[in-house]
């Protein structure tokens, strides 16, 4: 392949290829993505590259983003639902620099959202691509350490073992206590971990209009959900899948329907519940919604400054 569309990012002053990775690598990763989309939930091995950040910080996610990114894309990066955390800011700046693409904090404006831990609370649209950074792609790894064995189990649809984990939860806690990386059955065939999103976000995967691509950089596995795929959270007949209920509402925007973070404010037990999705919260505040304590975080920011 020639370096046809391999141009350095404009104005960067560096000679990096567009979106950092070379064209051959991007091409090989796109091929793997196509295979992953063709077989929803199946973990496809790929030749993962060394990226300029440590394993565990999103090496898988940025390889996907680099491979699917075009100049017309608008990129959003979130970490724990927030746009302003260190990792989110660094990855966003990285792509602004090596690809020169437009970045945004608004979910509705983004065409690609790279994320760790959360799926935005703003409903996703057709055409959007969610890129998830995955630490451990194998849902049965904790119970079965042999890769040869787990691959065979996937091949033969032997999924009794994944229920052993749920059984253990009920035996010890009286209910299924797994709250994140909650295993799902994809398209009635492959069991997949939507790791590491909270189970709160699991229902958003079912029949989603957006495309989901998951990538584990260290383990070198890519798997995907094309739009409108059936995704069912695993459970027992007498212990069905349930979402946790929040008794609080967001202190800033008053939302009772979003996933909340608990923020400890001082050492006297004062705490605050706010939306984990900062963009969702900001949109609501801009639309005029007011929570119980809208200035709570402004005060904390002043104290830190």
């Amino acid at each position, binding site marked *: 392949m020639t370096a046809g569309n391999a141009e350095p990012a404009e104005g960067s002053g560096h000679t990096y290829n567009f979106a950092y990775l070379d064209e051959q690598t991007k091409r090989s990763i796109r091929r793997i993505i196509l295979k992953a989309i063709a077989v929803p939930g199946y973990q496809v091995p790929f030749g993962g590259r060394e990226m300029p950040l440590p394993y565990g910080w999103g090496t898988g996610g940025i390889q996907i983003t680099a491979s699917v990114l075009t100049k017309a894309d608008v990129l959003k990066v979130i970490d724990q639902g927030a746009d302003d955390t260190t990792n989110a800011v660094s990855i966003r700046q990285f792509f602004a620099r090596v690809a020169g693409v437009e970045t945004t904090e608004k979910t509705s404006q983004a065409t690609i959202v790279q994320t760790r831990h959360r799926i935005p609370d703003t409903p996703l649209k057709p055409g959007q691509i969610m890129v998830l950074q995955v630490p451990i792609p194998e849902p049965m790894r904790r119970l079965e350490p042999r890769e040869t064995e787990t691959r065979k189990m996937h091949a033969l649809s032997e999924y009794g073992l994944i229920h*052993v984990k749920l059984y253990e939860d009920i035996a010890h806690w009286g209910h299924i206590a797994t709250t994140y990386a909650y295993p799902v059955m994809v398209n009635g065939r492959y069991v997949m971990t939507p790791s590491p999103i909270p189970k709160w976000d699991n229902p958003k995967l079912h029949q989603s209009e957006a495309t989901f691509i998951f990538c584990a950089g260290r383990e070198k596995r890519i798997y995907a959900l094309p739009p409108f795929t059936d995704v069912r959270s695993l459970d027992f007949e007498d212990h069905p899948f349930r979402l946790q209920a929040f008794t609080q509402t967001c202190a800033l925007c008053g939302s009772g329907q979003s996933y909340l973070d608990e923020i400890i404010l001082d050492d006297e037990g004062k705490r605050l519940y706010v939306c984990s999705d900062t963009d969702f919260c900001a949109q609501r505040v801009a639309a005029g919604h007011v929570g119980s304590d809208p200035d709570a975080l402004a005060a904390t920011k002043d104290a830190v400054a």
Partner: protein
Amino acid sequence: MIELEPPLLTIQSLSKLYGRNVACSNVSFDLWAGEVICIVGESGSGKTTLLNCMNGTLTPSSGRMLYRTRHTGMVDVATMGDAHKRLLMRTDWGIVHQNPRDGLRMGVSAGANVGERLMAVGARHYGDIRSQAMDWLNRVEIEVDRIDDLPGVFSGGMQQRLQIARNLVTKPRLVFMDEPTGGLDVSVQARLLDLLRALVQELQLAAIIVTHDLAVARVLADRLFVMKGGDIVDNGLTYQVLDDPQHPYTQLLVSSILQV
């Protein structure tokens, strides 16, 4: 004339070589439903290799192994697909390892260990799985209130009984055991043997048990095979072999039992 039902398992000239070393050579026998065969012999005589060839852990170098499945009659195990073979191994067969740590999942509770096979064949009702697990812990004499304990906090004898419960919960017809009483003290051995004898009779289990302990063979086995250097040198009904040993090695083995 009495019509005999076909054997459950037929082994035809099974051999296993490790490079140029012969581990077991040209072994043939039939096993009928509900029958217990013990294979005895010294260390290195090939008895564990033979067992592992039969239970699918090893691939034999030559020979055939036919098994009478519940639905499709006699099937050559070598030509069986992976999916079918693995289904057989977790439903119709049981494998009891010498070291319970090899046969148990040490990271999950006793109840989950027993329930795993049920979940593997499609049980998805927590209450049912748990009550069956409790029933089986009861049957192997483990107190039911230990159901949520990890196997690691159990004694060696309890771990071995848990391993047996885990294997028998899907009501297999054939169980392979490798030194099931190895590493246990004599009083615990005696209790385990009592339990095994009762379960084998109650469930009409066929079993192939590898042991170097002739006492185990005498208590459990209908038939006894004596192995030496990869060959079965003596075989017959247990009491015949033990009371009237023909082969010089069997005579040596029987005369070597310590008398207290």
